[in-house]
């Protein structure tokens, strides 16, 4: 990798700025400034704070070196939250992404009547706030008055009925599925647009060769959609790592902290327990996990899809 700022690049920017002062100032310097103030500086400051003990109120902060990190590696709530984030990610990759792709394919291949209706219905929750979605499913999944258990019993699956939020073994999956319900429209729209770009000849050729729809999806559509899949997977990863709203409105980490996720743990430690330093350490952990996952996806799935 070449250094980001060398003499040559500075010189070429100066030349550019002479010719296009307006664009250089408002189109290059301004966004970089906004980035520095709202993203760059906060990230650096978060890393800095993670070496301190600070309650967020006092003017002085105590430098404690790596103590926060040592604590982090012994914090069982951290591990629970970290694993929960990965479970959340697994559910989100399996349920909304797969279903979103299937719906998009079925609509593009014109396999059903009323596809536009389905698309609208599945996309609508994307526009809903997760707080509203969470409240909605608190009502739907309520053990006494909820509709979901009634539906299960009516179709003969009554034995599946659980305490959707009370059972510590499944509460997290309940949240992840609710999040998936609200998220499905997004992968669907991305795949729908992506499938529109797959040349019709390719699809027709495969049809004539006698490929069934499963084969078409797997061997024709998906390979062509690699860049779309990369974007969708990236979105999914960050959506899962950001998980917060549903936890805040539905369980607040209960039962026994088993539905804590990293994002919620940062909030609890920082603003409820007034441990700003440790909160920052947890933030750094989120950052490290996001960078690791993003690098993995970018190197595996996506060679050059973000090239501009």
């Amino acid at each position, binding site marked *: 990798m070449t250094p*980001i700022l060398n003499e040559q690049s500075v010189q070429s920017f100066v030349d*550019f700025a002479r010719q*296009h002062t*307006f*664009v*250089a100032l408002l*189109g*290059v310097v*301004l*966004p*970089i400034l*906004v*980035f520095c*103030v*709202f993203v760059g500086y*906060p*990230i650096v*400051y978060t890393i800095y704070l993670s070496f301190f003990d600070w309650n967020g109120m006092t003017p002085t902060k105590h430098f404690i070196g790596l103590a926060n990190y040592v604590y982090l590696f012994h914090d069982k709530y951290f591990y629970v939250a970290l694993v929960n984030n990965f479970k959340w990610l697994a559910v989100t990759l399996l349920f909304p992404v797969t279903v979103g792709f299937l719906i998009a394919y*079925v609509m593009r291949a014109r396999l*059903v009547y*009323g*596809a536009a*209706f389905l698309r*609208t*219905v599945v996309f609508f929750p994307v*526009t809903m*706030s997760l*707080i*509203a979605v969470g*409240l*909605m499913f608190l*009502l*739907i999944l309520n053990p006494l*008055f909820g*509709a979901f258990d*009634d539906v299960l019993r009516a179709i003969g699956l009554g034995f599946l009925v659980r305490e959707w939020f009370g059972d510590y073994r499944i509460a997290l999956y309940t949240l992840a599925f609710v999040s998936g*319900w609200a998220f499905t*429209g997004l992968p669907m729209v*991305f795949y*729908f647009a*992506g499938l529109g770009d797959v040349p019709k000849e390719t699809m027709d050729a495969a049809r004539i060769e006698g490929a069934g729809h499963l084969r078409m999806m797997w061997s024709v559509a998906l390979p062509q959609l690699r860049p779309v899949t990369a*974007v969708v997977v*990236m979105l999914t990863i*960050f959506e899962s790592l950001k998980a*917060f709203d549903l936890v805040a409105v539905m369980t607040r980490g209960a039962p026994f902290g088993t539905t804590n996720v*990293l*994002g919620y743990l940062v*909030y609890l430690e*920082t*603003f409820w327990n007034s441990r*700003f330093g440790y909160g*920052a350490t*947890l*933030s*750094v952990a*989120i*950052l490290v996990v*996001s960078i690791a996952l993003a690098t993995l996806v970018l190197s595996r799935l996506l060679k050059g*899809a973000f090239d*501009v």
Partner: protein
Amino acid sequence: MSDYSAAPPPTPLAFALRTAPKVTATIIMLALAAVWLGPIILIVMTSIKSNEAFLAGPFALPTSPTLAPYFSVWASMQFGTLLANSLLYATVGSALAVLLALVPAFGLSRMEVPGKRIIFGLLLTGLMLPQQTVLIPLYDTLRALNLLDTRIGLIIVHGAYGMPAQVLILRGFMTAIPREIEKAAYLEGASDFQIFWKVMLPLSLPGILVGYTLNFIAIWKEFVFALVFLNHEANFPVTVGMLKLNSDRYMAVFNLPAAGLVISQIPIIILFILTYRQLSGGNFVGAVKG
């Protein structure tokens, strides 16, 4: 079909056989649609039930619909204030995001800006970054500037965080605008600013509207920043104010929380009806694909 006489008129049976697979698939898809539509219908139904009707079960039709839960929850939750706040944050915050994004999008779509790759990298970082990783410093900065727990502070944060997506969306639209007009304008001696102001801005108005709408929805949904940066209920947007609905006081009978959450989504529903063709068609996807 060029030769009508050759084809026998389709008998009902033949028609049924031909369309059977598609009908079956449609039925499966309808069941799937019910997974998404069902909960929403049930909630709307619950929200217009009286307390007594609610006890008849979630699937009992509201035989004597009433708007009483709406009036009750509107008054006790002060939804007027909450909605006004959300509306303020979403309209002004999105406007700020679009304003910040216009010139960068213009530059990136039309010129060989040095450091293009770096700028894209920064934009994608800003777009993807989990909010929790910057929460504490932003909180600290806002406090130092006396902007904590103020509407203007939250609007500034929303504007800054809306910008990256807006640049990518607007750049997508601007790239698609043919260059003939501006070439002519350049030959006439127009400056960059004049091209931007008189040619690009009017032509990219549809793109601006799409971007603005998406940002509006994003801010309407936003929760973490508002929860952390605001303390007074008078400043709360709908998302934060609504948390109170999940309490014993409101959860005793479901018609109140149901009505509350329908109220909270009404502006978005209106926006959705007005724009869903653009949104669900994936017009913004091309921009993100880069």
